[in-house]
């Protein structure tokens, strides 16, 4: 009998399903994310263009893994997907002291998906041993090191944690949105500093693709449920999810989120058309065909979002200021030459021909829709298409026309090689258009169309004359100072502003580059948003005037969506809204 009772008790324990458990202080998601209150159930199928190489957010640099893990792990503060504002995440509130260097976070009362409570220990552990772990391949040491010293984290009590900044840092909460919290109770064994006999690189071997899915726990709206190698990743709702809709229903709505791994774009499109995949990102080239199909009654539609998000990255044109040829070097460094080149770019034609009109005149490089940082004055500075002006300026620079060919001051014909990615269609098409404009001026242009990986390598190695490349529009310029501040590793068109120890060389900078360098230094430690904007306004104006890179166009964000999905829509400002946790199946 005793045995029987024990067996029954055991059965009850085992069989009792994990009921969806709401946190005591759930976060209500912005009503702007909802068109209507969703229905529970159904499955959402999305595409993923490569297999995840690991499920360790900090152990790899892999976009497929990031895409999956953003469903599973949460940051302390997050960006509101509808507005881009910083809103509470795992921290329900925070305060900054008067000095601007101590930020105190009050943590939300939530549990990890295995039921373990989430506490200040997890935060301190994540920041100290994972995010700031120099041996983790995907670490963020750089983002949380200010003026040479790291941000320190201190536990006050289980639900209060303090960040002590060495200097005030205006973009602090913005960078925190990319620091996802990992569970201490699962990650601890991989940390060399906390375990004897564990090698420093072991952190990278946490949560590899063969880790049992039950060990991969998070606080996000979803948890991992199954990974079939190279075929699909399945996620299911996290019973402890702390996000709710405006009526208080726990999110997500769907009972399954599936990522199908499809490497080829054409197959992805085919799978979308056949209804197997529910939502994809498309290019301007596919837009007209899909729109036609939508109008003739297909079970899907297309959304043309205004250019408000960092992707697609807007292409720019750059010249190599450190090229070996001394004469070309002097030409490329001449402001008037680059000005002349801007006059040769017919942005409206490019928007029409390359993007099927689904693009806008870009910012420099801040997105026009980014009201927090965009400087509208650049629109006055940008030079419109005018080949006559271009000719005149080229003459002034000393690149003169002789028998129909432009020749350099030394009498040598002016020939230029334009490098870009063959597998990025817009870049390719833009290169062809630029070639035709330049040849019209008498400049012999050679196109070097190679794979994007090789373009990246040539860029880094400084092996190019002219190049079309693209970087995404990060909302906060400070987060991309590695690109835009002279003397940084990705300021690739003028590499001599940096020495071999990766330190900026101020004396190699032009006066205006010095000013840009200073502006970024000032903006970094400024906490007042108005003053920060003033610094970055000046930076944009300098860029528009001096043209270290010449911006060409910004493509719109285009998506194709199956009609059975609810809560994927265009907001009034033209932004495509639709997160995995607010989407429901009609």
């Amino acid at each position, binding site marked *: 009998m005793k045995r029987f009772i024990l067996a029954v008790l055991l059965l009850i324990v085992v069989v009792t399903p994990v009921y969806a458990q709401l946190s005591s202080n759930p976060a209500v998601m912005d009503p702007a994310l909802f068109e209507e209150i969703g229905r529970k159930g159904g499955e959402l199928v999305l595409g993923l263009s490569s297999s995840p190489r690991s499920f360790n957010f900090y152990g790899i*640099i892999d976009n497929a893994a990031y895409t999956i893990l953003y469903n599973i792990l949460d940051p302390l503060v997050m960006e509101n997907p509808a507005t881009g504002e910083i809103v509470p995440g795992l921290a329900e509130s925070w305060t900054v002291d008067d000095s601007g260097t101590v930020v105190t976070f009050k943590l939300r009362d939530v549990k990890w998906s295995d039921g373990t409570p989430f506490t200040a220990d997890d935060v301190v552990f994540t920041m100290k041993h994972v995010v700031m772990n120099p*041996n983790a391949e995907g670490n963020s040491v750089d983002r949380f090191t200010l003026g040479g010293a790291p941000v320190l984290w201190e536990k006050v009590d289980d639900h209060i944690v303090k960040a002590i900044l060495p200097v005030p840092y205006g973009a602090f909460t913005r960078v925190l949105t990319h620091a996802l919290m990992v569970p201490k109770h699962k990650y601890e064994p991989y940390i060399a500093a906390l375990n004897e006999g564990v090698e*420093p690189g072991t952190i990278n071997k946490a949560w590899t693709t063969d880790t049992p899915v039950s060990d991969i726990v998070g606080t996000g709206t979803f948890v991992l449920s199954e990974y079939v190698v190279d075929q699909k990743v399945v996620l299911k709702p996290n019973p402890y999810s702390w996000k709710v809709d405006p009526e208080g229903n726990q999110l997500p709505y769907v009972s399954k989120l599936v990522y199908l791994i499809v490497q*080829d774009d054409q197959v992805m499109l085919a799978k979308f058309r056949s209804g197997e995949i529910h939502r994809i990102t498309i290019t301007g080239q596919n837009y007209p065909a899909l729109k036609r199909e939508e109008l003739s009654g297909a079970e899907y539609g297309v959304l043309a979002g205004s250019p408000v998000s960092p992707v697609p990255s807007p292409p720019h044109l750059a010249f190599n200021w450190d090229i070996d040829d001394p004469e070309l070097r002097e030409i490329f460094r001449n402001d008037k030459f680059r000005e002349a080149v801007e006059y040769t770019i017919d942005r409206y034609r490019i928007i029409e021909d390359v993007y099927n009109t689904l693009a806008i005149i870009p910012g420099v490089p801040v997105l026009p829709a980014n009201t927090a940082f965009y400087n509208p004055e650049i629109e006055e500075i940008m030079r419109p298409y005018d080949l006559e002006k271009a000719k005149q300026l080229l003459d002034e620079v000393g690149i003169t026309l002789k028998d129909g060919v432009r020749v350099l001051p030394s009498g040598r014909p002016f020939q230029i090689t334009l490098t870009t990615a063959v597998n990025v269609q817009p870049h390719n098409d833009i290169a062809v258009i630029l070639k035709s404009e330049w040849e019209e001026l008498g400049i012999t242009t050679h196109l070097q169309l190679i794979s994007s990986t090789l373009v990246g390598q040539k*860029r880094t190695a400084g092996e190019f004359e002219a190049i079309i490349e693209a970087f995404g529009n990060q909302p906060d310029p400070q987060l991309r100072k590695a690109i835009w501040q002279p003397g940084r*590793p*990705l300021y690739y068109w003028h590499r001599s502003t940096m020495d071999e120890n990766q330190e900026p060389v101020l004396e190699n900078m032009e006066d205006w580059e010095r000013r840009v360098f200073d502006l970024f230094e000032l903006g970094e430690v400024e906490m007042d948003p108005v003053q920060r904007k003033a610094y970055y306004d000046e930076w944009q104006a300098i860029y528009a005037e001096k043209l270290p890179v010449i911006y060409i166009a910004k493509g719109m964000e285009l998506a194709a969506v199956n009609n059975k999905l609810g809560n994927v829509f265009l907001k009034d400002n033209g932004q495509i809204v639709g997160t995995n946790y607010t989407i429901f199946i009609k």
Partner: protein
Amino acid sequence: MFRYIVRRFLIMIPMLILISILCFIVIKLQPGDFTTQFLTDPRITPEMVNQIRERLGLDEPAHIQYLTWVKGIITRGDFGYSFAYKRPVQELIWERMGWTVAVAAATIVFTWVVAIPIGIYSAAHKYSVMDYVLTFVGFIGVSVPSFFLALVLMYIHLSLGGTAVGGLFSQQYIGAPWTWGKFVDLLKHLWIPVIAIGLSGTAGLIRLMRGNLLDVLGAQYVTTARAKGLHPRIVVYKHAVRNAINPLISIFGMQLPELISGTIIASIVLNLPTMGPFFYDALLNSDQYLVMTFLMLSAFMMLIGNLIADILLAWSDPRIWYD
């Protein structure tokens, strides 16, 4: 025979060592290494890249890297570690082996089952209308690249209202336990890759089989057999085909490495969960130990395939004898 096989195995050891050295040199000749891809990422500082290189041992001279790798294999049976996946390479390859072998085996079976009878028919009905038609199809098969054929087949299938494109299963059956429904779903998907990948091999085999058989059919002993009044079917199948098929057996051995390396581009286009796309990725990322192990496996299969072909030859043709 036994001594012959042992000797062949012993010869394989220096061969594989030589191949491994060549492969390693080729890998090292390509500019950059695994960490080069990080240099273009704004999120990663150059110091971090240097740290990663040091930790992965990529800062060591090439011959030390090679010897360390070989030592791991000999002492621990460890074929190294994938930089991208942070896991031992043999595990990663093993995970993908199942579907790779399955798809390749289905393709090879298709190739042979279709090619041999057609080849025989073509030869036996030389210059008939059917012979010309089949020869024409054969030439198309040889000349059209398999990835293109795959795209065309998928396009035709889609425009006829089919939905089973790309991959081996519909989404709901991936990872599900085996049922009749799952098997049918597999068949619905499998025919496109089998035809797309197999057609070029089929066409080649048809041409070979036809040519060989025509040679044999012109031989004097066939004329003798016919003159004796033997039934034409017996002349062709029992006497001629058996002799004509010998060269094809050596080809069979060569197909073994294709079991794993197969056709990479077609597999990407068809979205197959096989080794091809996986290997292609590893090559692009310079994930060197993964590439090395893969190449070694491929070389080993080639050697084994040749050995098997030789043994099969001895078995099928009594004139061949090894001592």
